[in-house]
């Protein structure tokens, strides 16, 4: 499994070889970002909701110990078996032991970024267990032997003609048929058979309520529900940060989640699993895998507030034009770039640099994570600990000097624009990590700052 990991810049270059495709990817994601905006603007109290969600999550992170104990107690009273896993490996072992205990070799799984993080599928496959991902997008990438490229839209990088060909090969659909309606119907038939025969169903968890011990799972397809309700065993896997204190807080989070993710008012199904169905057994696996350690890191801890809506990816100019796989981590985009180095600094040292620090991610984040500030902080940590190449370092120390002194920022902007206009080769060179296979954008004649100053002057006011 240990492949040499290529860094984001190299992988992004590969993705950028096919320019029309990059444009298409970019536009598709921007379209989803716009849907998110429209949905958000319809809620007068949107900003208050974000603030409330952020505060609830802050409270959770500060009191996780107590909430987890409360959750465990409630869940046990509900007849659920609760497991604790310190790391990915232990999580995988626990899940496998449950499956083995029931003598099962074929299971269904609905979307769970945690199991991606833990590489559960690969592990189970090695133990002779066949895992079928039942979310359509996940099934597509699974058939193709790829990881998802987006946490909400796993096959956003696939074109329908390619999916048609994939289904032709794996599901026997007619060659050349690329109609989404038709292909979805084919997948429905194919996966129904799996639902009908699987005795174990794994799901992720969107929210776990300490007060009641219930777990809430949100899907549009109904695949989590169908899987669980037709199985004898339900295994729900969650990171320990998925806890929320009380049921009423779901009101806040369910209002934010789908609107932020896809612009829908809510997902089709928001299912509250509290007690197993008669005759069924239910397990919840609580996974740490670096989270408790991250909580100690003042600058980075609040990345754990994430509710995995994907909004920061859809809005990110780098993600949109480099594709999810260029991040070589289960969670791509801005949030992945601040989570991954926490797990393995060396392996993911390139990711915090895959950003323009424009701040758009932080602006759309429904739980108000300061993503772009953390990206910047990670760069400093990585440079200090010697995980960064000299080219990036030069760019970074320049950037650090610029960002810490707004006066220079203004001047260097003006100077930069002058250079871009008259000596572009100087900017479009290897020393600028953002110049690669892309022309630098056309230079605006004035920056906003200059325009603003001039405008104020014209209006007779002091700048």
């Amino acid at each position, binding site marked *: 499994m240990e492949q040499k990991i290529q860094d984001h810049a190299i992988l992004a270059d590969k993705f950028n070889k096919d320019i029309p495709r990059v444009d298409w990817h970019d536009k598709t994601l921007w379209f989803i970002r716009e849907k998110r905006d429209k949905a958000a603007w319809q809620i007068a109290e949107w900003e208050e909701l974000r603030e409330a969600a952020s505060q609830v999550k802050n409270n959770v992170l500060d009191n996780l110990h107590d909430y987890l104990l409360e959750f465990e107690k409630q869940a046990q009273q509900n007849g659920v078996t609760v497991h604790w896993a310190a790391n990915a490996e232990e999580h995988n072992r626990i899940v496998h032991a449950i499956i083995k205990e029931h003598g099962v070799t074929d299971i269904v799984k609905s979307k769970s970024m945690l199991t991606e993080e833990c590489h559960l599928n690969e592990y189970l496959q090695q133990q002779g267990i066949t895992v079928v991902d039942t979310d359509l997008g996940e099934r597509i990438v699974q058939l193709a032997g790829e990881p998802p490229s987006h946490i909400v839209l796993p096959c956003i990088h696939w074109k329908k003609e390619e999916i048609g060909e994939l289904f032709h090969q794996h599901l026997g659909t007619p060659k050349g048929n690329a109609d989404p309606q038709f292909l979805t119907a084919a997948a429905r038939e194919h996966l129904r058979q799996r639902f009908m025969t699987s005795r174990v169903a794994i799901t992720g968890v969107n929210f776990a309520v300490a007060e009641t011990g219930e777990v809430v799972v949100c899907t549009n397809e109904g695949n989590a529900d169908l899987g669980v309700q037709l199985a004898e065993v339900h295994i729900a896997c969650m990171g320990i940060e998925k806890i929320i204190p009380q049921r*009423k807080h779901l009101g806040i989070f369910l209002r934010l989640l789908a609107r932020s993710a896809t612009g829908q008012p809510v997902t089709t199904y928001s299912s509250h699993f509290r007690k197993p169905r008669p005759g069924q057994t239910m397990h919840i696996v609580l996974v740490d895998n670096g989270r408790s350690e991250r909580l100690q890191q003042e600058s980075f801890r609040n990345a754990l507030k994430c509710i995995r809506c994907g909004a920061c990816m859809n809005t990110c100019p780098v993600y949109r034009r480099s594709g999810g796989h260029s991040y070589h981590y289960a969670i791509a985009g801005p949030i992945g770039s601040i989570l991954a180095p926490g797990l393995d600094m060396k392996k993911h040292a390139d990711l915090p640099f895959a950003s323009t620090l424009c701040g758009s991610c932080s602006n759309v984040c429904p739980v108000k994570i300061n993503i772009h500030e953390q990206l910047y902080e990670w760069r400093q940590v990585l440079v200090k600990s010697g995980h960064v190449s000299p080219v990036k370092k030069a760019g970074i120390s320049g950037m650090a000097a610029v960002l810490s002194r707004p006066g220079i920022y203004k001047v260097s902007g003006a100077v930069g624009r002058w250079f871009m206009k008259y000596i572009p080769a100087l900017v479009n060179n290897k020393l600028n990590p953002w110049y690669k296979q892309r022309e630098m954008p056309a230079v605006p004649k004035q920056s906003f700052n200059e325009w603003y100053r001039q405008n104020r002057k014209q209006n007779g006011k002091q700048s």
Partner: protein
Amino acid sequence: MESRAKILQALSKKFTDHPAPLPDVKAFPPTAGDPVDKFEFILRGIGGRTVRVSSYTEIDEYIAKEYTSGARIISLVKEVAGSAITPDIDPHTFENVDLVVLQPHFGVAENGAAWITSDRMGDRALPFISQHIALVITTDSILHTMHEAYEQIGNADHPFGTFIAGPSKTADIEQSLVLGAHGPKSMTVFLLSR
């Protein structure tokens, strides 16, 4: 249990002298307008159908018109025609159900969702395995927001409950919306005014 102790110990370290307090959940004022109209508008926007009726007979008539006599229809609403289910039946046997008729507790105007719990499902698999789903919601039970919804749910102890907002759907193939991913291909909500 070793990991449990280890994790809890790591978490018991004090992170801050000023732990963030739990904020009150504010009661946001409902948006203006009739919640039933809004529910209808939103639900149609996400692929659901709505039919306004003033009696259960009208619901029977509508279903009789839409489904052939051979269709397997299960109704958990006693006033609506359809077969009942026997307890403890294997849920896999519902695979050929064409329509299930259920009565949720309430609908939510802001997102077109309806809250239904396991005691009203007959079997928990039914709302998901059936090819089509119909819900009967009385117009006076439609709430404005999810905050009102959770206020109404309170601390009721339901083994399983779900919000359902429209038919099961996916847009995973090039963002083209397709109704009927794994669950019901259509959802009809009868808005019953009395």
